[in-house]
C-alpha cells in the first residue's frame, strides 16, 4: 500500500541520495536520531487515532508501539518523496487490522474514551477529566458506523488531510469528504447544543 501512496520516479537509492537532507531522508538512510524526531512529531496523532479506534488506552499503547517498530523496520521501503504521515497511518491501519484478527471485535470505540469499563487502577472518575461537551460529542461519534469513525478519527484525532485519508483508505477523496460531511451533520444534529 505504501507504493500506492508514494510511487518513486527513480530508483530508490537515487531518489534518496538526490533529496535534501530532511529527517525523512536521513531516517531512510538509517539515522536513528532523525527517526526519533519523526516519532516525536507523530506519536501523539497515531496514539489518538488508535485510542479512538480501540477504545482503551492499554491497547492503544500496544498498537502504537507496533506501528513505530514496524515503521522503523520497513523504512527502507518508504519513499521520501511521499507523505510520511500518510505512510505511517497506512502502517497503523495494518496494525489495527492485525489487532482485530487477534482479538474479538471492539465493543467500544470512540465512546470508549468516556465509557470504558472501570479499571480499578484508574479510578472511578477517570471520565470526569473530559469536558461535558467533548464527552457528549465523543459519545455521539461512538455511535457512527465503523467507516465513519475511521474517517472522523483520521481527520480530527490524527489531523490528516482528506487527500491523505483517501490514500490510506484507498478511496476517492470526494467519497471520503462525503462520508465526513454526513458524519459531521449527524453528530451536529444529535448534539444540538454543541
Amino acid at each position, binding site marked *: 500500500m505504501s507504493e500506492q501512496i508514494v510511487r518513486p520516479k527513480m530508483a530508490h537509492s537515487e531518489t534518496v541520495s538526490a533529496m535534501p537532507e530532511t529527517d525523512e531522508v536521513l531516517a531512510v538512510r*538509517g539515522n*536513528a536520531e532523525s*527517526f*526519533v524526531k519523526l*516519532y*516525536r512529531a507523530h*506519536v*501523539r496523532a497515531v*496514539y*489518538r487515532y488508535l*485510542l*479512538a479506534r480501540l477504545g*482503551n*488506552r*492499554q*491497547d*492503544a*499503547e*500496544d498498537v*502504537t*508501539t507496533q506501528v*513505530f*517498530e514496524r515503521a*522503523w523496520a520497513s523504512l527502507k521501503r518508504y519513499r521520501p518523496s511521499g507523505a510520511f504521515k500518510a505512510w505511517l497511518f497506512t502502517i497503523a491501519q495494518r496494525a489495527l487490522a492485525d489487532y482485530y484478527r487477534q482479538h474479538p471485535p471492539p465493543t467500544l470505540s470512540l465512546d470508549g*474514551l468516556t465509557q470504558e*469499563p*472501570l*479499571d*480499578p*487502577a*484508574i*479510578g*472511578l*472518575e*477517570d471520565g470526569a*477529566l*473530559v*469536558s461535558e*461537551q*467533548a464527552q457528549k*460529542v*465523543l459519545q455521539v461519534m461512538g455511535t457512527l458506523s465503523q467507516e465513519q469513525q475511521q474517517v472522523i478519527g483520521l481527520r*480530527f*484525532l490524527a*489531523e490528516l488531510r482528506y487527500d491523505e485519508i483517501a490514500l490510506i483508505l484507498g478511496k476517492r477523496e*470526494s467519497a471520503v*469528504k*462525503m462520508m*465526513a*460531511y*454526513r458524519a*459531521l*451533520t449527524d*453528530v*451536529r444534529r444529535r448534539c444540538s447544543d*454543541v
Partner: protein
Amino acid sequence: MSNRKIALNESELDRALQEEEAGMGAQLLKAIREEAQPRAKFVQQLESRLRQKALAQRSAASRLRLPWFTWAKPFLLAGASLLLLVALGGLFWLHQAEPVSAEQVLERAAAPHLAPNAVMHLVYKQEQQSRPPTTGTGDVWVQADARGSIIRTAMTFTGFNADGSTQTIERMVIDGQNAQQYDYDPRNNTVRIQTGTAQRIMGDNPNYFDGASVAKYLNQVARGGLHGVRLLPSQSFYGVPVQAVQTDSDGGMTFYFDAQTYVLRGAQGGGQRIWLAQSETRTTTTLPPDVFAFNPPAGARVVKEDTSHDSNAPGFRLSREQLASICHLTPAALDAASAADKTPLAACQQGDPTMTADQLVAALLAHYQGKLDEAVAAGNLTAAQASENLANLRIKLNQWATMPLGK
C-alpha cells in the same frame, strides 16, 4: 441522509464540509484531542525503546560491513570487559579509598554491601538548558541490612520552574523487589501513582539520580556491543577523579562514576547537567522519620495509575456492575459511595459488613485468574509471567481497596 446532500457537487461539498468542521469548534476539538493524549511516560519509554532498537540495528549492520572487525574483535572485547566492570562497579558503592583492579571490582560487585545497617544519603542537583532554563534536585536514600545488603531505596526528584516554583515532584520507593512511584503535578494538584515490581516500573530507563540504575542501564546497552557506549579517558568531574562513560542514547549522555567508590558523581548531555552536591552516611538509628515512606501529597487528586503489565497479558477490567455484585450493592449505591469519597472496602462493607480488604482483593483476583489461565493455555504467557502479573495486580488492588473511590 437526504438525496440533496448526495447530489452536492465538489465545490458545494467542500464549502459544506468546511462549515461543518467550523461548527465543531476549535476549542471543542482541542478538548477532545487533549483527552486522547498518550501518557508522557509511555511516549518517553517508547522513544527510548525505539532509539535502542535503532542503534542496535545500526550496530549490527556496521559489524557486518566493516572488514576490520575481525582483527579488531579482541580489542573490542577487551573494551567491552572494561566497560562491564565499570558498570558492575557502579552497581554497588564500594568503601575503598584506593583505586581497585578490575578483578577486585568484579569480586566486590559479586558480593555487594554497604556497612551493616548503614544508610547512605546523596543529594544531586540538576540544570536543564531550556527556554527558560529549569533546575532540579535529586534526593536519594539507600539502606543496608545487618549483613550490609541493600534492602531499601528511596528517591525523590523535584523540578523547579525558572521562577523557583515547583514544577514536578517524582518519588520512587523500592523495597526488595517491589516499588512504588508517584508523579505529582502541583499546578493541577494531581498525582499519578504506579506500583509493581521494581523491574516493571523502571523498565529500560535509568534513573539518573541512582548510580545502580545507571550502571544497570549501561550494562544492558553494553551487552549489545560497544556501539553507542564508550569509556572515556580518566578525568575529573567537579574536582573528583572519575570514570566517564558516554552513551549515544538520551541525546548523548556522559555519566561520571567516582573512580574510587563508584558512586555516581554526575551526568551531563542532552542539554542537562547533574552533579552530586552532598553525600553522607548514617546509621538507621539516626534516620529522619519517613525517609523510606511512600507518601503521595495528601489531598492530591489521583488521576491515573500506570498499567505496565505484560503486553500479552489480558487487561484487568472491572465494571461498576461487577464491583457492585461482589459487594452485594446496587450500582446506584456504589455511585453514592463514590460521591461520598468512600474507599472500595468501606463501600463494600455497606453491602457486606463482614467483608475484609483481603476478601475483596481475593474476589477481584479470582475474576482475573481465569483470564490469566486462558492466556497461559493459549501460550500468550508463561506460568511465571502469569504469576508475576497476578502479584503485581494484588499490590495494586491492595492499594486501591483503601483509596477513596472519588480520587
